[in-house]
């Protein structure tokens, strides 16, 4: 019954030139500008390959018996330890082009990192932390240490990062795409005409949600392809990434439509949505990369956009992510809650009239 309504609502949204600019050209331009502007920051975080690190150890150090084991584990992970005289950490790093240095005291150690090689420094620190945690537990011989995908060292450049992040950000702003349709419906009392034909609140809701998701999804799909072709953005696992983007578009659309149902105003709904999503993006890595963000982890985790951002960025850089499930389930939960509230409020408003 609402097939033709969905089809025509989709046409209204997709024919709007402003929508095409916002959802196709917008992400491409913003991605290009930001990836260019922040490329230097990301370059310093490029993944570490094999590297040489120095160490020094005092003769009375309690850690002496473990040095050979540490060197073996280091080699397995591409970190080659070379011994230097105690007290020469800084000059050795400079003089022998070392990526880092570990100074072993009687029962402690100090890691020296070079400002020029932050990722290698982080890898060295990670290796030492992991090694000593295993050593303290007393099972160092049977402990396997692998540095495959250290989560502090993103193997992603600014093009991939912003090329992905801004597809997500514009996806969360889905309600803007429905503005023309909703304004026209409101201006011309079209929902009343739909009600005369006995359309339920749920059917009217679906007649907006489905074309909105299709329209934003299609536009952002084109934008993502443009990003890949023009900027060289890599998406990693395309199927999983598509599912995540689709889930967030459905959630964003239902969230926007719920705001519209509550406020009964397109302008108010867009304003509130934009303010909330901007804040969410500010904390969750849309503007400042979440990798370098100083925001508390717990706060970032509260932002649905952070889960989408992190899942897609990690899929692109590492091919897998622990955030995939939350990046799908959180939008699904948002969709269920917002849809129920939208239909509930619309139904209630009808009964009250």
């Amino acid at each position, binding site marked *: *019954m*609402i*097939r*033709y*309504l969905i089809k*025509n609502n989709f*046409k*209204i949204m997709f*024919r*709007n030139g402003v929508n095409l600019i916002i959802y196709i050209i917008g992400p491409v331009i913003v991605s290009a500008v930001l990836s260019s502007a922040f490329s230097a920051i990301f370059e310093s975080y490029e993944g570490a390959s094999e590297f040489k690190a120095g160490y020094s150890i005092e003769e009375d150090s309690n850690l002496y018996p473990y040095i050979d084991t540490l060197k073996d584990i280091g080699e397995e992970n591409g970190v080659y330890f070379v011994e230097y005289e105690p007290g020469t950490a800084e000059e050795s790093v400079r003089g022998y082009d070392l990526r880092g240095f570990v100074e072993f005291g009687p029962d402690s150690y100090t890691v020296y990192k070079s400002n020029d090689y932050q990722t290698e420094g982080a890898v060295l620190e990670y290796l030492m932390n992991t090694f000593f945690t295993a050593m303290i537990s007393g099972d160092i011989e049977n402990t396997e240490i692998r540095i495959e995908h250290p989560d502090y060292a993103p193997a992603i450049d600014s093009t991939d990062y912003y090329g992905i992040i801004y597809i997500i950000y514009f996806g969360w702003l889905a309600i803007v795409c429905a503005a*023309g349709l909703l304004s*026209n419906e409101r201006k*011309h*009392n*079209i929902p*009343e*005409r*739909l*009600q*005369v*034909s*006995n*359309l339920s609140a749920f059917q009217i809701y679906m007649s907006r949600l489905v074309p909105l998701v299709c329209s934003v999804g299609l536009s952002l799909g084109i934008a993502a392809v443009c990003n890949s072709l023009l900027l060289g953005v890599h998406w990693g696992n395309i199927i999983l990434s598509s599912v995540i983007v689709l889930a967030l578009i459905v959630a964003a659309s239902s969230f926007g439509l719920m705001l519209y149902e509550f406020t009964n105003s397109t302008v108010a709904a867009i304003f509130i949505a934009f303010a909330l999503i901007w804040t969410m993006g500010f904390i969750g890595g849309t503007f400042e990369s979440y990798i370098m963000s100083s925001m508390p982890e717990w706060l970032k985790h509260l932002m649905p956009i952070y889960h989408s951002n992190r899942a897609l960025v990690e899929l692109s850089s590492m091919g897998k992510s622990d955030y995939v499930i939350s990046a799908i389930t959180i939008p699904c939960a948002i969709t269920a809650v917002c849809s129920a509230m939208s239909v509930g409020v619309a139904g209630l408003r009808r*009964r009250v*009239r």
Partner: protein
Amino acid sequence: METILKTVDLTKRYDNRTVVDNLNLEIKKGEVFGLLGPNGAGKSTTMNMICNLIKPDFGSVEFMGKDFRKNKRELSGKLGYIPQHLAIHGNLKAWENVELFTSLYGIKGSELKKRIDESLEYVGLSERRNDYAKTFSGGMKRRLNIACAIGHHPELIIFDEPTVGIDPQSRNFILEKIRESNKNGATVIYTSHYMEEVEAICTRIAIMDNGKVIASGTSEELKKLVSDDVNSITLEEVFLTLTGKKLRDL
């Protein structure tokens, strides 16, 4: 004649103001029923209650012998509503607008295509079927508004001030089409502030004021309420005599 629509003690209050007060209307099948009244008389609220857009505080609407509210699913397809506002999408072509609203009544496929052609032909917009509604003149938009409401072949059509703000040619065309619909078997409820229109097309007229019907009958019967010489008085004079000349500022 068989009754197609009946309001029984229909009442609606907003805050402490009674907008429609125990309204009892009976519309016979095949007639063109005119509903007149000054601003704030309760016409639109009555229409909205008939169309199930507003819930009455008391009373009911019987449509084709059944309580309309309780039998919406079965009966809504037999009602056509042409709202005063242009309920069309400017960014859709004429045929797409008709498709959208006609399909809401379960019409699809080749039958839907046939109904779209038929509706556009009916309102004289066949040649402009592929043009966007936003490019249409006021009169054309009004005609498209009508086409969107008749594609499902309703038995009762409600015209809520369908000729507001259009040129005499378009107005004449719309009135002709209302007559034609009636001849083809549709019952019509017509509201307007243009008395000469109502007089020209309506077989029976009710005048509402303060939520109640204060007079009803044929044009001649209404005129007789005010003057014995029906030829010397217009419907507008009857209306002003019955409802008063005081401005109705809402």
